[in-house]
């Protein structure tokens, strides 16, 4: 599929990124190169192959539901760019 400016625009929107025109041009070129490169995979017949997301056989991990304190509110809030009282502060989200 041909990569267009429109696709770059849509992907940036999904990625929550705003790109400069220069960044867009560079990415357009880079996407072309990348897709050409990965398209070589199409030479490989994978009709009856199962997709593999993980190497080792993973099972769901269960544990007892016990109350414990891993960390305290204060040290977590210390890293907040903006806080109010005991909470993270964000711009108003509901009018």
């Amino acid at each position, binding site marked *: 599929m041909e990569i267009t400016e429109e*696709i770059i625009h849509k992907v940036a929107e999904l*990625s*929550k*990124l*705003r790109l400069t025109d220069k960044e867009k041009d560079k990415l357009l070129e880079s996407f072309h190169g990348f897709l050409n490169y990965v398209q070589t995979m199409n030479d*490989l017949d994978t009709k009856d192959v199962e997709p593999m*997301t993980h190497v080792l056989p993973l099972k769901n991990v269960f544990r007892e539901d016990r109350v414990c304190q891993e960390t305290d509110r204060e040290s977590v809030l210390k*890293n907040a760019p903006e806080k109010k009282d005991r909470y993270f502060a964000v711009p108003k989200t509901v009018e």
Partner: protein
Amino acid sequence: MKEITKMTALALGQMIKKKEIKVFEAVLAQLEAIKQREPSYHCYITVLEEEALQMAKKVQEQIDAGLLEDSPLAGVPVAIKDNICTKGIKTTCASKMLADYVPSYDATVIERLKAGGAIIIGKSNMDEFSMGSTTETSYYGATKNPWDKERVPGGSSGGSAAAVAAGEAFFALASDTGGSIRQPAAYCGVIGLKPTYGTVSRYGLIAYASSLDQIGTMGKSVSDCASSLELISGYDPKDSTSIKESHFQYRDALVEGLKGMKIGVPKGIWKAGLDPENAHAIQEAIGLFRNMGAHIEEFEMESMEYAGPSYNIIACAEASSNLSRYDGVKYGFRSMEYEDLEDLYIKTRSEAFGEEVKRRIMLGTLVLSSDYYESYYKKALKVRSLINRSFQKAFEKCDILLTPTTPTTAPKLGTSLSDPLKMYHTDTYNVAINLAGLPALSIPCGLDSKGLPMGLQLIGKHFGEKDIIRAAYNFEQSGSLVSNGNEF
């Protein structure tokens, strides 16, 4: 002073135990070396002077009280890649996004290092969020290769590798998603060991591509790597992909003799753009293994040439998902001006992520979008299956596999980033191993005509660390080049 930083980690640990040297003396010598050499190499983002000296005092007390008896690395300074969380110590991932981030907890590997008495001396430089193969995408500037200051140390764990090579750390922890331990180890003439996926807890490792990321160690000797890996390995309930295995006594594999070991050499390695000098070094290494009594067999391995495309799609896809957490709300950078919440997210991310990180987030988002999902992402996962199968078939015939670590020696600074596809090529021998979750290590196998170290990669079966450690140990004993070939 210089003599101390020339020692291996285990040799220093032994002297400390014998009370021939105090922990604080070792730490002071290390800090002194860092002070002298950092202006040249820039291995660290943060150096921990005060904390290290405090820790030295505590560890010395423990040793004097007869504790830490069976901990060979007690009192030994270690560098930690700056994507591993350290409580109360800035952990930046070499990104503007996390420039002021101070974790409220220690990664499990840090807890284990501390319990073993190792002294964290600094947080080492890396490519931003581990995305790169040269350490040039770091927000804090590039690290220089101690063998030639005009060259890159490799990446993404370039700071860790250079620190060990320059005597700015006795050993280091790093992470490997597609060669990020092994490739810089090769470029810097040190040993880098990436264990089987699930061996070392990823709790507290800032995620890049979760199904590929694995923490490992770098050191001046095979024994240092084996001992430090032993210290950090083991089941951790905080990492749901951590494996309930208990055969982590890697030092048991440090034994002489390779008689009867079957070493496989994939035929494809000779045509993957391999530099003639590197090819020659690999041939010599093969001869050496044969002389030590190993059986060498060359054979074709199917689908390996598709590992790069599959890896890059999977890594970018997982990265785009993992990095969506950086929104300027709970921690990390927040843009100064914004109109509403959406604008806050967008401005924060656009201002704080570097070019390569944005590119990979974009690529990952693209291959996960509905129009591309089947033909790219799902295809890549199927190719991953085939690569895994190809390795399984190979391990029916042999105990370990041997390849070069990299096609060439370290490139010059400033020559790689302009062409991402070319940069990816430097990891061509590495990425398939992460797709299959196998253990692998890189060990120096000589210098090229420019005087730069070349690396040999040994790959084991799942949980076959002991096989590759034993092979590497024997190779090292036979007189291969070890890191101290340079002036440190």
